[in-house]
C-alpha cells in the first residue's frame, strides 16, 4: 500500500496560496482550480514523497495537506483518464 497527498479544499480555498504547486517535483500533479480557488492532486501522478506536506505545514503554515492510503481516497482526480482541466467545476 502507498499513500498519496490529499488537499483539504476548505482550508486551501480560504487562502490565496499556491505554494505547493511550485514545489511538487512532478509536473501537473498538484493542479490549481481557479474557480474553486484551491489546489488539488492528480492521484495517479502523485509519488507520495510528502514534500508538499512540508511546504504547506512549514512554509505556507496552512496545514491543508495530509497523506492518505490510496485505497481510502474517494473520487480521486486522475489526469491520465480525463486530461488537463482548468477546473473541476462542471460548466452549467
Amino acid at each position: 500500500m502507498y499513500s498519496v497527498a490529499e488537499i483539504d479544499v476548505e482550508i486551501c480555498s480560504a487562502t490565496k496560496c499556491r505554494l505547493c504547486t511550485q514545489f511538487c517535483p512532478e509536473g501537473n500533479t498538484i493542479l490549481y482550480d481557479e474557480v474553486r480557488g484551491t489546489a488539488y492532486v492528480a492521484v495517479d501522478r502523485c509519488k507520495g514523497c510528502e514534500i508538499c506536506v512540508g511546504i504547506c505545514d512549514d512554509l505556507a503554515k496552512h496545514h491543508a495537506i495530509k497523506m492518505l492510503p490510496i485505497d481510502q481516497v474517494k473520487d480521486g482526480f486522475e489526469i491520465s483518464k480525463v486530461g488537463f482541466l482548468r477546473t473541476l467545476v462542471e460548466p452549467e
Partner: protein
Amino acid sequence: MSLKTIQAAPGFQDYLPKEYQDLLEDGPFFQQRKVSELGSFKEALEEHPMCAGCAMTLFIRLCYIGFPSLEHTVICGTAGCGRLAITQGAVPFVYGNYGDTNAVATGLKRGLEIRFKDQPKDVVVMAGDGGLADIGFHAVMHSWFRKEKFTTIMLDNEVYGNTGGQDSGMTQKGMVMKMAPTGKKFEKMDMLGLAKTAGVAYTARIAPTNPTRVANTVRKAVLIAREVGPTFIQAYTSCNIEYAIPTPKVMDDARDVEKDRYGFQEYFSDDAKTYWEESEKERKRLRRAAKK
C-alpha cells in the same frame, strides 16, 4: 520545433492522445509562463520514472518554465537520471553519448544557426555532474574555450546516481561512496571557477529552494547564451537515494546545503553584463509602454 509543426491536421486532432491535445490547447508554447501559474496550465514535462521526491526532478520541471521560448529550444542530454524525465518533455531531445553532450550541442547549435537564419534556436545541455565534470569534461571545457553559444546546466547531485552511487569529481571530499569506501580523497571540483577561466559569459550556482529564482536564472542563462556566449548553471539537485535523505526532508536538505556551501551566486562577463542591463532596460520600457 515550433507549434506549427506540432499542430494537428484538421480532423485528426480528436484522435491524438489527450496529453497532446492538452499541450495544444492549454500548453506553455508561445508565451512565457510563470512559476506562479503552475497548476493552471498543461506543463511540457510529462509523467516520468525518476524517483519520488527527487530534487533533480523539481529542478528540471522549473527549467521548462524558465526557457524563454520553449517552441524553439532543443535539449541535449545523455545517460543519467535527469534524462529519464527530460526525454518525457514536449521539447526536442537529442541524446549525446555519455561524455559527448557539449560536442553534440556545438554541432546542433551551429547547424540550427545555418538552417534557421531568422529564428534564434536555443540549445541547452542538461546532464549530470558525472556526465559533465568527469567523462564529458574535455568536451565541456572546449565548448567554453570556443565560446559556443549555448547553455550548459549541470544537475549536480554529487554522485553517479543512475549507476548506483559512485563518487564523481563533484562529490565532496571525505564522502563514503561506492567507489570510495574509505571516503573520497579529493576536493569537489571548482567547475564555476574553471568556467570563468575558460571565458564563459555567465555562470550561476543555485539550489532549488526558490522556484521563481530557478526559472529566472535559467531564462537569463539561455538569453545570454543566445546573444553573448556560453553560459553555465551548476544546480544542487540532491540524490535522496544515494545520500539517504528521507523524501519529506529533501527541501530541508536543499535549504541546509544552500546555507552551508551552495548559496546563490552569479557571475557576468563584462559583455554579458552590458547586454543584460540593456535588455532589462528594454523590457522595462516595453512593460511601461504596454501599460499606457
